[in-house]
């Protein structure tokens, strides 16, 4: 349950960061290998007796991400040309030219199936492969293994194949038959695949296990042979009877060609072979596995997961307290808003009216100087208060501004009827009449944006884009520090924002890069100062190597310190505990 929710959370997060990757189910059924038992019939030549295929579940395929969910139309289109139906009355012609020796399952037998529940792969066994395009492949493999390819001693493994006909690992062998010419019949087991290399790589494995299968069949048949010989020694019979090679096979009418079931006296032979072959395909496919590492999740991902988990725990706590009550009400206004803010951008679309679309848009509306001040306060971790009558507009402002910060540094109260303290939120939306406490308005660690309606008397707004025609923004702060020097991150963002050549997407990726870059510096500083507790001198060295010194150094350091609060708990606790074990001693 929790796992599912976490994944859900990630999905939402992906959407939020624009990195979503969707797995759509394409309508593909795949087989990467099949196994078949073939027989060289005295009357009919090489024949396929029994074939086990692996049918794969529809595959997750990487597909283009984009807004919205692909409609049914898309999938309909995918399928066009694939939905080909062919019918054939196969059994009739087939039976005409068949004897007992050429047959495994009776024509009426539906075949066998085994399902691998873990992967959904279905292993199907029939006399012939079900997919017509594989029919000729198997037929080809059968004919080649029993009448074309030469194996010294006639029993043993061969690999052969080409790109047109597929590739085959074949193992030929004899089965004792009291009634057959030379007292034995010739069989082969073929493994067919298109992946030449894979099949060759699997040679030792296949050989090892097919030998077991073959020996088992041979031994069983040998016992039957021996017992039959006791009852009726054929050699003597044949010596005594008038023998004509031309009619020989037909002389033994009725038993002209015996089935493998009869040769082994194994009534469930085909079911057992199905199991053996299915197992072989599965074991061969999973013989080698890869351990492939991905990058560690970003801090943003970790924080989102942690918050989601916390919320779930809170929710389940309420559930327990209220006996599974339906609607948990307490402090809903706040928590739900916070949640929406973090996870769901879609909600704000419900609110009508003008909105900020991007940082660049915000910058254009506020002007470069006011924007700089605002962004500076955001990055330093100061409380940014927006006060105005339009919650939609304020939310959209926070929405674009929060992109400046790591997720872990964002604590927002979107729209509140009263002031909230700075430790609770660094983004605060207020309705126009809410007073700001004096200690806040006089603090250099906060800034206020008042959104004032421009009196125009006009009912219809000209357009949503034209925010300035509707509102006026007054920015105020008690801060006396210069905001034009640093931090370095802000300087770089401003370059990107002011360059109209760069699309909004480029700017946001650029911002992502910068944030990750600075987050990595934050990690180092955290490790250095909080975990290892190094002195000032060393810390200065680290700041220098991180490129945080120089112009705007003071702002850089403030930013790093603020961002440290946004590190995930997991990361912090990991560094605090695990890493200590591996510390080098100073002598090293």
């Amino acid at each position, binding site marked *: 349950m929790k796992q599912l929710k976490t*994944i859900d959370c*990630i999905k939402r997060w992906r959407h939020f960061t624009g*990195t979503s990757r969707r*797995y*759509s189910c394409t309508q*593909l059924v795949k*087989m*990467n290998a099949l196994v078949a038992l073939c027989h060289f019939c005295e009357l009919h030549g090489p024949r396929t007796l029994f074939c086990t295929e692996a049918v794969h*579940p*529809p*595959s*997750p*395929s*990487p597909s*283009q991400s984009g807004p919205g969910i692909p409609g049914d139309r898309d999938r309909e289109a995918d399928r066009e040309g*694939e939905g080909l*139906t062919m019918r054939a*009355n196969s059994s009739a012609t087939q039976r005409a030219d068949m004897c007992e020796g050429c047959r495994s399952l*009776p024509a*009426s037998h539906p075949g066998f199936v085994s399902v*691998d529940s873990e*992967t*959904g792969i279905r292993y199907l066994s029939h006399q012939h492969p079900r*997919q017509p*395009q594989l029919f000729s492949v198997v037929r080809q493999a059968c004919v080649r293994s029993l009448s074309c*390819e030469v194996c010294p001693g006639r029993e043993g493994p*061969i690999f052969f194949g*080409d*790109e*047109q006909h597929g590739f085959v690992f074949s193992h030929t062998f004899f089965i004792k038959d009291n009634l057959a010419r030379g007292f034995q019949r010739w069989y082969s087991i073929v493994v067919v695949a298109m992946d030449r*290399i*894979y099949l060759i*790589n*699997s040679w030792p494995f296949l050989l090892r296990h097919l030998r077991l*299968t073959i020996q*088992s069949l041979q031994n069983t048949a040998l016992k039957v042979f021996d017992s039959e010989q006791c009852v009726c020694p054929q050699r003597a019979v044949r010596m005594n009877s008038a023998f004509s090679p031309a009619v020989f096979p037909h002389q033994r009418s009725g038993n002209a060609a015996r089935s493998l079931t009869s040769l082994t006296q194994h*009534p*469930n032979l085909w079911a*057992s072979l199905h199991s*053996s072959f299915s*197992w072989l395909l599965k074991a061969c496919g999973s013989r*080698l596995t890869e*351990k*492939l590492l*991905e*990058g*560690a999740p970003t801090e943003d991902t970790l924080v989102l997961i942690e918050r989601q988990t916390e919320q779930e725990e809170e929710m389940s706590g309420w559930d327990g307290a209220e006996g599974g009550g339906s609607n948990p009400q307490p402090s809903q206004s706040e928590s739900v808003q916070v949640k929406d803010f973090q996870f769901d951008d879609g909600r704000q679309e419900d609110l009508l009216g003008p909105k900020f679309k991007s940082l660049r848009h915000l910058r254009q509306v506020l002007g470069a100087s006011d924007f700089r001040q605002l962004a500076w306060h955001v990055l330093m971790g100061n409380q940014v208060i927006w006060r105005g009558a339009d919650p939609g507009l304020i939310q959209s402002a926070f929405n674009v501004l929060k992109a400046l910060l790591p997720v872990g540094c964002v604590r927002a109260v979107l729209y509140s009827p009263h002031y909230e303290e700075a430790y609770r939120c660094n983004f605060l939306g207020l309705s126009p009449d809410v007073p700001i406490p004096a200690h806040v308005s006089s603090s250099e660690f906060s800034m206020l944006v008042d959104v004032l309606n421009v009196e125009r008397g006009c009912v219809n707004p000209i357009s949503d884009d034209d925010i300035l025609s509707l509102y006026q923004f007054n920015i105020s702060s008690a801060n006396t520090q210069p905001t034009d020097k640093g931090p370095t991150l802000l300087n770089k963002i401003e370059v*990107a924002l002011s*360059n109209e050549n760069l699309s909004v*997407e480029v700017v946001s*990726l650029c911002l*992502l*890069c910068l944030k990750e870059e600075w987050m*990595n510096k934050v*990690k180092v500083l955290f490790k*250095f100062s909080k975990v290892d507790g190094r002195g000032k001198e060393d810390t200065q060295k680290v700041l220098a*190597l991180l490129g945080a010194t120089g112009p705007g150094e003071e702002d850089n350091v403030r930013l790093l310190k603020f961002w440290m609060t946004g590190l995930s708990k*997991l990361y912090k606790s990991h560094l605090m505990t*695990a*890493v200590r074990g591996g510390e080098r001693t100073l002598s090293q």
Partner: protein
Amino acid sequence: MPTLLQKLFSKRAVGSGSARDCSTAAEQCWASAEFDLAQIRLIVYQDCERRGRQVLFDSKAIHKLDTSEPTADETKTPPTRSGACHIGSQASEKDKPPTYQYTRPASDVNMLGEMMFGSVSMSYKGSTLKIHHIRSPPQLMVSKVFSTRFGSSTSGSTNTLQDSFESMSQAFPSHASSIGVCRVPSAPLLCLARSASFFAGLCGMLKPREHVLISHAHAHSNPVDMPSRGHSEDGDSGIARSASLSSLLATPLPSPGSSFSSGCASSYQRRWLRSQATSLQHGPMPRWNTEEMFSLSDESCSSNPATIRRKKIAISIIISLPEREEENHNFQEFFFSHFPLFESHMNKLKTAIERAMILCRRIAESSQRVQVYLCRVMEALGEFRMTVWNLYMAPRISEPVWLSMTSQSTERNLLCQRFLKEMSVLMDHGAKSQFLSALLTAVLTHHLAWVPTVMPSSLPPIKSACQKPASQTVDLLAKSHPYNPLWAQLGDLYGALGSPVRVCRTVVLGRRRELVQRVLYILSYFIRCSDLQEHVQPQGQMKNPDNPANPCSSQTTDPTPEKTLPPKPDPLKHTACVIEKALNPESVPGTSVEQNNETLLTDTKSTNPSSSLESSAVRPECTEMAQECFGEDTDSVGGGLEHILANQSPLLHRVQFHIGSPRETENEGQAGGLSGAGCGLDRKLHQRLLTDIQRNESSDSALGDSDEETSQRELYMATEQKEYELPLPSYQVESRASVNHFGRSLLGGYCPQYMPDFALHGISSDLRLKQCLMSDLEHTVLHPALDEPVAEALCIVADTDRLSVQVVTSQRRVCEGGRLGRDVMVSNLVHTLITSVRQLYALNIASDFCVMHLEDRLQELYFKSRSLAEYLRGQTRVHVKELGLALGIESSDIPLLAAVASTHSPYVAQILL
């Protein structure tokens, strides 16, 4: 015969050694046993419709006659184990080149010819690959059979060569005894032929009389058309098939990345595409390089297609296997897991033989013609033997850093410490020249497999924040859509992740062994690949009679008298239960049996043949029944099974083949996202059953249904649902670190000589490198071991003596002053990256934190590459200044970031070209 040197090296490269070893000493040999060059035999055979079969070459029939060492058979002299198989040194000292005696081909050639061509020759005109195992004496034979292609002007083909052979054998019927010496002035060949010591002076003097090529008239056979795709009728089935059908089935594969821009999944995607490309679903679908032929003319003229099929040439390599069981096993494991490399070298050999044949045809005098031919082929065989020997015997990095960190998490701290220590030493060594920065720039640009390892995972970490999670997506993919992990690994090592596909190797050159080994060690962190695990049955399990591979396991050998089954299971009841379960897995079986039973009874009783299609949709998936039927009392239940079979037979007279993809998925497949496909499928099956039953309830009207109205889904069900379900045998597996994989074998150590296969290795002299590199790179593009088309092959050459790094490319560009390649521009991002790691380490920060930081910084490179890709999307011109100001990307970083970007945004390469 263990040599002294052999004893000096430990047996196995893998599984021994620990992180504490000094890098300089920790190089080990791969092979457990000596490998003899004479173990490799070459046979070239021709099968001609008109003339039958002829041996065109058999290395076993060639013996060296050397006046100075008359008895020595050079191929029997194994190269010293410490070094690679050497080229050169001794050959030049000898005044008298050896001479060769060609005796009658060995007695087994007839049989071998049969095996190569088969008793019935094929009409297929592409190349065919075969591998035979010969039991006694134990040998492996790899053959490639080619159709021949001649230029129009010389349609005589190999005839001239053959004629020479034949005229000689006629002229000297007492061939075997007549041993003479022939002298060929072959100075150019001489210098080329100074290969291995065994080969010294091979191409000196040859006597034509010894060359006997026996024509095997009896082996002549007529080509037989095999049943193949596109024929209208198939042998014993009567299934109508048509060429148009085949072409429809062969729906084109999605081109790599064409519709994929998210940038998270290059490695996932590569594997998925591979699974697609090698799928049997479309039937055989020639992927590439299928028209490989044996060229008998240097002009690429088209010729009469009728003549093409007449002649085939087979090239066979026969490897004698070691006598000892364990050595035999080890070599075979190595051979089969490394087959793509063997094959690539065989292709090279084939090209050399082609050239030899073409070349010798220009020579008028027939004895000389044969001599030139033999010299050339022997030379090529020498190369092949040496390459194979090197591949098997060369020293390896015993503890590649990245793989060791992946597989041994307990040793992680020690590994990190050692890695950083070595890196610091190296950085200090080449500080002025930015040697390491340049080298890492090149390595990160071309060995791109590091990129997926830093792409942020979006899944919660399982263990701790710093431990990279194993990719669950890839894991799931591997289970449901098998691709070859060895193939994936090879691509990783060669860095074949970008678009277009490029493959790269790195060679570290230098006289100072320790220094070269240090560089190799450090690079083994950056040249990455997945680690492989092998899951096999435990040895004891193999002999267990209950082994799933044994179909006659609990089957009794002496037939026991039939027991009477207590209550005979009613198959219908069982099926009903199963269906009921499927419909409502949580309810108690039996509650709604009646209702379902009704459905089913209607179904089976149905006498209307045309409704059989519909009714067959609800075939039982009767696990329980199957278990009862195939449990312990297999014998006695046989009758029960027959009974069931008989009951269902009416349904099967009409078989429906359905190709393609019926609608099957709702969006539910996505609901789980990355979570298992298995449960999704189960759910789907249940839903499908439900749908079918609902349909069946109203299926009385199905009689009049036209084909069009019969939904594809139903057809799909009809074929999917009816088989008897048996449980998949469970089996016990032992998981162990795989030994024979490329991650362990292609990261070479300090070798005496350049070798073409290794993703990374060190050499002391660039003599052979200079000789071979360009042709190796060209060969790689033509015959990539990777089994997929390659656009460019590259080699990074890092010279630790001169502290220079160059990149050599198969796309030959003129380089000044006879230099191999172009110098690498140091990426500023890479330089600052390693500098800051170095500084952190110097500040005495825990080394595993430093490594984490290194990974974080590599991840920054990935993010930057995404910015660059996005920037380039809408751009026709790249403003470098803009990149620098806004994205922090300098011109020196662009090649690196563009290469990284091409792994997730294939369009980047096109824009930057």
